[in-house]
C-alpha cells in the first residue's frame, strides 16, 4: 500500500512537466541559483575591488546566508504604493514581469530520456521525439521549442514598459524608453543569431541541435558571440546596464518599487539571463551531449550557470555605455556581423551538417 503510494508520488514528482518546470532547473533551482548568483556577483566583485564582500551573516559559508537575510528583510519590509497610481496594476506588473521571464522553462529541453536506465525512462514514450530518437526531458514537448522560447522572451520588454508606465515616474519612463530602444536592437541580434544556427542544423528543435553532437560554437562562433552580447543587453548586464543606470535613472523602470515587489523586479532580469544562458548552452555549447537523463540535465545547467556567472562578473570589469553608443554598436557593427553569421550558417549547413 505504502509502496504503491510512494511509487505514485515518485511518478508524479519525476514527471518531466513537473520536475523540469518546478524543481530542476525550474522554479526551485532558479530561486536558489538567484541567491547564489547574487552572492557570487558580490563576492567576485569584492575580490577584484580589494574588499571582503558579504561576510557577517555566516562567516563559515563566506557570507552566503547574507542573501537569505536580505530576502527575509525584503519580504517583511513595507511595500510603498505611490499616490496616484492604479494599485492593482502596480502590484500585478512585477508579478507579470517575473511570470513572463520564467515561462520559457516550460519548453527548454534540458536533456534526453534513454529507453532504460534512467529515472525518467518510464516517461520515454510520452516524451518521445521521432526526430531525435529519444524521449526529450522538457516541460512540454514540442519540436518548435526554439521559436517558442524566443517568442516568450521577446514579450518581456513589453512588460517592463508596462511596469514603468504604471508607476508613473519620470525616471521610470526614461528607463522604459531606453528599454524600448534596446529591446528592438538586441531582439534582432538574438533572433538572427539563433536563426543562423537553426538554418545550419535545419531544425527549430533544440534537442535535435544538441543531439547532432557538434557544438554550435564550433560551427558558428560569430553567432555565439552575437548571442552573448544580445544576452548581456537583454538582461541589463554590464557594460549594457543602460536601462537601470543607477547614477542616471536611480534604477530605471523599477524606481518606485520597494519591499518584496522590488525583489520580483530584480529577479526578472536574472531569470531572463539564466534562460538565455540555458538556450546558449543548448545552441552553442552542446547542451547535455553526450550524457542523458538527470546527469545530462545537470551537465547542461552547469554550463548555463557558468555563463550566468561570467555575465554577472562583467560588473567589476566594465563601466556603462551610453544608450546611443549601445544602439550604434548593435546596429552598425553587430547587425552586419549577425548577417555574416546568417550567411555562414547557411553555407556551413548546406555543405557540412
Amino acid at each position, binding site marked *: 500500500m505504502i509502496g504503491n503510494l510512494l511509487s505514485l508520488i515518485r511518478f508524479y514528482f519525476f514527471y518531466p512537466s513537473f520536475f523540469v518546470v518546478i524543481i530542476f532547473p525550474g522554479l526551485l533551482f532558479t530561486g536558489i541559483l538567484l541567491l547564489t548568483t547574487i552572492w557570487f556577483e558580490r563576492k567576485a566583485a569584492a575580490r577584484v*575591488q580589494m574588499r571582503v564582500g558579504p561576510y557577517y551573516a555566516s562567516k563559515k559559508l563566506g557570507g552566503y546566508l547574507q542573501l537569505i537575510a536580505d530576502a527575509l528583510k525584503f519580504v517583511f519590509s513595507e511595500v510603498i504604493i505611490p499616490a496616484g497610481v492604479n494599485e492593482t496594476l502596480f502590484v500585478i506588473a512585477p508579478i507579470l514581469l517575473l511570470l513572463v521571464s520564467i515561462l520559457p522553462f516550460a519548453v527548454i529541453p534540458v536533456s534526453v530520456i534513454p529507453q532504460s536506465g534512467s529515472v525518467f525512462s518510464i516517461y520515454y514514450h510520452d516524451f518521445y521525439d521521432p526526430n531525435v530518437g529519444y524521449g526529450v526531458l522538457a516541460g512540454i514537448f514540442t519540436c518548435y521549442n526554439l521559436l517558442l522560447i524566443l517568442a516568450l522572451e521577446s514579450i518581456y520588454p513589453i512588460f517592463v514598459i508596462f511596469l514603468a508606465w504604471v508607476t508613473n515616474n519620470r525616471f521610470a519612463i526614461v528607463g522604459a524608453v531606453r528599454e524600448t530602444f534596446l529591446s528592438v536592437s538586441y531582439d534582432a541580434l538574438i533572433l538572427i543569431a539563433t536563426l543562423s544556427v537553426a538554418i545550419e542544423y535545419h531544425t527549430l528543435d533544440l534537442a535535435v541541435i544538441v543531439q547532432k553532437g557538434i557544438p554550435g560554437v564550433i560551427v558558428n562562433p560569430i553567432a555565439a558571440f552575437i548571442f552573448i552580447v544580445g544576452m548581456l543587453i537583454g538582461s541589463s548586464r554590464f557594460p549594457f*546596464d543602460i536601462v537601470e*543606470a543607477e547614477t542616471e535613472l536611480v534604477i530605471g523602470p523599477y524606481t518606485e518599487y520597494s519591499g518584496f515587489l522590488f525583489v520580483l523586479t530584480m529577479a526578472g532580469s536574472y531569470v531572463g539571463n539564466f534562460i538565455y544562458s540555458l538556450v546558449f548552452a543548448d545552441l552553442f555549447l552542446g547542451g547535455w551531449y553526450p550524457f542523458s537523463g538527470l546527469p545530462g540535465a545537470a551537465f547542461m545547467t552547469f554550463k548555463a550557470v557558468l555563463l550566468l556567472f561570467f555575465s554577472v562578473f562583467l560588473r567589476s570589469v566594465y563601466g556603462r555605455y551610453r544608450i546611443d553608443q549601445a544602439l550604434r554598436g548593435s546596429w552598425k557593427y553587430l547587425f552586419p556581423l549577425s548577417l555574416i553569421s546568417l550567411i555562414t550558417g547557411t553555407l556551413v549547413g548546406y555543405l557540412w551538417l
Partner: protein
Amino acid sequence: MEVEVVPVQGELNVGPQHPGSGHMRILVKLNGDIVEDCELDVGYVHRAVEKLGENRNYMHLIPLVERPAILDSIHMNMGYVMAVEKILNVDVPERALYLRSFAAEVNRIASHLYGLGILGIFIGHSTAFMWGFGDREVWLQILEALTGARVTNSYIIPGGVRRDLTPSIIEMTKKAIVYMRKKLKDWEKIFLKNPTIMDRLQNVGVMTREQAIEWGAVGPNLRASGVNFDVRKAEPYAAYSKLDFEIPVYKEGDGYARTLVRFEEMEQSMRILEQIIKDIPEGPILADRFLKQIPPIRMKKWVQGQGRIVLPGYYASFRPPRGEAAARVEASRGELFYYVVSDGSPKPYRLRMITPSYRAIYVFKNLCKGARYADIVSIYGSLDYFPPEADR
C-alpha cells in the same frame, strides 16, 4: 502615410535625493536624450563659513575653513594660514615650508583618487570606485601619522606646522609611492584603457581653451583645455620654488583629458614627495617668534621630545595688526583664493574664500548644454565637482 514626429520634451528633477546628484539638485530640461538646459540648484550644504569667520578667533578658524572640503583639508588650511601670515608678517622656517608641501602633495594624491573613484561610479565602473577609496587609504594613513587625523587635519598653523616628520613616516611614504606606482599601472589597464570608459569620456563635455578661460575653469579642468596655469608655478608658495615638477597639460579639453591630467598629477606629486624626503632641511618647524612663547617645560617635553608644537592658550586669541591680505594656493581641484581683512581685533573683519568647485558650477552648467542625459554624470565626475566645497 505621414509619420508625425513629436518632439519629446520634459524636465527631470535630479536630486537632491538621487544617486547621481550629490548634495545638490540638477534641473534638467530634456529634448529626447539631449539636455537643452540645465539649472544647478546648489547650496544644500551651505555652512556660512564666511560669516562664521567673522565671529571666530584666527586660530579657531583653522578647523572651520577646512570643513567645506575635508578630503582636501591641507590645502583649504594652507591658503587661509598663508593669508593670515601675510597680515602677521611672519617668516616661516624652511623645514615647515617643506612639510607643508609634503602634506599638500599627499593630500592631492588622496583627493585625486577620491575624484577618480567618484567618476568611476558615476559611469558605472564600481571597481574604480572601490579602488579609488581603497588606495586613498594608504595616503590617509600617512596623513594620520603626520598630523594625527585622516581628514580635517588642522596641520598648518600661522608660523609653521604642528608636527614634525619622523623616520617611520618617511618609510611609510616610500612604501606608499612604490605601491601607488604599481597600482597606477593596474588603474591604467582597468580604467584608463577600458573601452567603455574611453567611450564615455572622450569627446564628452569638450571645453575649448577660450571657453575654459571665459567660464573661469581652474586647476586640472583648466589644464586639460590647454592652459598651462598652476599656482605652484605661477606664484610659488611653500617649498614649490625649490622643487622640480612638471605641469601636465592636454589640449583636448574633454572628460578624458581631465582624467588624464589627474592621473599624471598623481605621478608628479609622488616625484615631489621623493624630492622632499631627500632634500628636507633640518631646523625648527615653527617661526622663532612663536617658538619663544612656548614655556620651557612644554618645549622640552613636546617640541624637543616628540616634535610637536603645543602652544600656550593665549596664542589662540592673538591680535594681528590692521591690514588685509590675499593668498592663493593650488588645491587639488584648482586655484583656491583667500582674502582676509583684519581690523586689529582677534577676529577677522572679513574672510572671503573662493573655492575651485565654486568656479566649476558655471563650467558644469555650460558643459551640460547640448550633452546627452547620460553625459551629465560623466561631466560631473570628470570636473571633480565637490558640492560642499562649492557651497562653503
